[in-house]
């Protein structure tokens, strides 16, 4: 991850007028803010089919026929997908990659943000491109893109055999595989979905279907011996290296590791499983009874449930606390350590723990206004737009990035004052 300690953590505010840009361009699209809060950027239109990217009020030199999917990487690199004369490439901080492609999409970043990958189509063949270098092997189709955390490897589900028009037998026999850095596994499957790299990037696991009914997880091309009636995306255990995935057995879901169910209890649904950073606990979003949702830790569901949806499960950095966005009777709130916050909102963003896990914060939206809530206390300030808060490494300060009255503000606030 980016070195957060090097950011400016001085208490104070920096302001950048954002709405003022509108005078300089035909139109300004929705803004994006760098992780450190120092820059605000948007795709801007200059004239008919002339687009650029404006950062802190200054447009990139390049002008493109189209520009979209503006995204900051974790270390603050700003990328966009851009097109000139019908060809596409990636622009990073205003510099375009030298190669042009038929199409590029689905930008991915390494965990430290230093490496950028996209899916690309060239002459109706598909490959991943990492920092401007395309795989040598191209494929007839490509889905489910992945980059390893260290950014050295890219992978995707690829079609390795011709399917033929409505040739259902051929499809079921298997035409898909996984390519890592362009090299396809030897094995083929009917389907391959949702790839996961191991933390060191050396292994790759994916959901596979063999024929129409047998679902399992394949690791480096080898399927688990046991099949299930369905599976969801696997994850690697950060310490043991075991591959862990939700599996469906006799109409109910549980969690399996390396092919064997490990949670004795069955659920109506289990997904988004996650291992705590210290490797000690395994949590997942579960439905313990039809229509009700909560989290389960090591197979034991929490008592508090909501009746619509749970998402964005997050562990605290020390692995001891757990929070997730939860929707009940049409309103969102946070589910933290088996308790719901007292307040309800129209919308909520993923929870953010302080580095010591003591505090949990979330951006919320009510009637089109955004606010920050810390430990169930809503801070008085409200915003037109608000990005995820970031705690300083020592947990004493919080970076708040928001727009109000057309001005973007980067604010560093003292946590104890906030909560006083």
């Amino acid at each position, binding site marked *: 991850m980016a070195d957060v300690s090097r950011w400016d953590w001085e208490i104070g505010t920096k302001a950048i007028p954002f709405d003022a840009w509108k005078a300089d361009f035909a139109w300004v699209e929705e803004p994006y803010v760098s992780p450190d809060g120092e820059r605000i950027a948007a795709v801007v239109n200059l004239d008919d089919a002339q687009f650029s990217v404006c950062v802190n009020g200054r447009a990139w030199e390049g002008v493109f026929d189209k520009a979209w999917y503006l995204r900051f990487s974790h270390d603050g690199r700003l990328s966009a997908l851009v097109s000139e004369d019908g060809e596409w490439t990636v622009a990073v901080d205003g510099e375009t990659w030298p190669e042009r492609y038929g199409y590029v999409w*689905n930008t991915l970043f390494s965990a430290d943000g230093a490496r950028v990958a996209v899916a690309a189509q060239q002459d109706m063949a598909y490959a991943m491109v990492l920092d401007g270098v395309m795989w040598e092997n191209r494929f007839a189709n490509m889905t489910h893109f992945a980059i390893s955390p260290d950014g050295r490897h890219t992978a995707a589900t690829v079609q390795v055999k011709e399917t033929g028009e409505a040739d259902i037998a051929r499809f079921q026999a298997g035409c898909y595989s996984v390519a890592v850095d362009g090299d396809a596994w030897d094995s083929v499957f*009917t389907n391959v979905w949702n790839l996961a790299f191991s933390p060191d990037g050396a292994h790759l696991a994916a959901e596979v279907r063999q024929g129409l009914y047998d679902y399992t997880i394949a690791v480096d091309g080898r399927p688990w011996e046991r099949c299930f009636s*369905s599976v969801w995306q696997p994850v690697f255990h950060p310490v043991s290296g075991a591959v862990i995935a939700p599996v469906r057995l006799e109409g109910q879901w549980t969690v399996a590791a390396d092919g064997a169910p490990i949670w004795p209890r069955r659920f109506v649904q289990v997904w988004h499983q996650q291992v705590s950073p210290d490797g000690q606990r395994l949590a997942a979003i579960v439905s313990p009874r*039809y229509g009700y949702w909560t989290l389960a830790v090591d197979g034991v569901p929490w008592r508090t449930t909501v009746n619509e*949806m749970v998402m964005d499960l997050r562990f605290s950095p020390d692995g001891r606390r757990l929070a997730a966005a939860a929707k009940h009777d049409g309103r969102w709130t946070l589910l933290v350590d088996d308790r719901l916050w007292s307040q309800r909102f129209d919308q909520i963003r993923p929870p953010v723990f302080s580095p010591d896990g003591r505090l949990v914060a979330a951006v919320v*939206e009510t009637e089109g206004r955004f606010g920050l809530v810390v430990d169930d206390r809503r801070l008085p300030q409200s915003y037109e737009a608000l990005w995820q808060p970031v705690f300083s490494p020592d947990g004493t300060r919080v970076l708040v990035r928001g727009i109000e009255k057309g001005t973007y503000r980067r604010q560093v606030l003292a946590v104890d004052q906030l909560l006083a």
Partner: protein
Amino acid sequence: MAQPAKSEAKQIVDNGIEKGAAGLTEDRIQAVINRVIKGESGARLKVYVDTCVHCGLCSEACHYYLSHDKDPRYSPVAKVKQTLWEMIRRKGRVSVDFMRRAAEIVHTECNLCKRCAMYCPFGIDIAYLMMVVRRIVHLLGMTPQYIQDTAHSHAAVSNQMWVKPDEWPDTLQWQEEEARGEIPTLRIPLEKEGADIMYSVIGPEPKFQAQLIYQAAVIMDVAGVNWTMPATAGWDNSDMAMFTGDNEVMGRIKREHYETAARLRVRRIVMGECGHAFRSVYDVGNRWLGWRIPPIPIIHAIEFYHELLTAGKIRVAKKFKTPVTIHDPCNVVRGGGLHRMARDLAHALCEEVVEMYPNCEHNYCCCAGGGVINCGPPWKNKRIEGNRVKADQLADAKIRGAKVLIAPCHNCHSGLEDINHAYELGLDIKFFGDIIYEVMEKPEA
């Protein structure tokens, strides 16, 4: 009105059904049937089977029965008798030929339209029973070829039409560019987190009917809606896997659809004019996953357009002159109760609305729904013959002045085109979106 030539009574060969039948044993059939009946289908199946008194009151409901001069084989209850009852009576021990015929009945002689459920004194849902048999057919690998191929497409690329992952955003950008010829500042905002609305469509729109996306974009733009479309999988709300009984793929694609909307943090999803997708997103697919109600609210285009007009966000510049009639799609009318809203909309947009009868929740199915049209060319004539009553109904509306047929559902649209053509009805078939686009106030280019 012309009559389409009756297809000869010869057996239609479907490669999908035959592929499954090859090598099938009665032991396997029995094991699968018993697994589904005992393991997957609970009290609902038992209640329906135990309650039916074989009175046949459901017969008059079914367009297949009526279109085949009341041939009792096409009566709803007869379809159960020829399939599920027999399976239960014989404890699952049925022959391969029996299963061939069962696959044909449940996939090509029932649209799962639920009209019969309204005629049954006990409300028995024959469509549900047909779905149970489709599940058995799926697990035996006997699903008709073309709809199986569609289910494969859902599984491989998360959409119904083998649209590749780059073709989707590329098509949206192309439509955006086209529409800028008309409204220079128009956007189709892709991946815009926090928009109010995610607009989702079905596979055929980017594949064959990109102008529908164009029109929707113009409507959104003029109405000032804060909307977005995903650039990733999850954009397609359709679901033929639901109709093949491939519940696992159905669940997978519904999850992707809702989680895409959740990822984009939209308030709600607006879906285009599709009927079966509506059934999948608000009833069948979500529930298979454990979501009792849609986790992100979702509304059909009829509701959305109604809302825009009522709120004055779009205004009618000049009403549509040509007299229209309205087809009520089963899934959004019997299934979703949107027939009144559809009429309000039609009256607000058009000068003259000619009702066809029976209408609203009693309307006849288009005979394309329930995945029947997706069974493809081998079954096309059978499908058209199976809906003579619809042709009669349309011809009657035409005699009373209707020239345009509004069908706010993709399957209905395609199925009615076939009926229109085969029975030489000469109607012009449109979506509500086509009419709104034509009559609405738009800024001068």
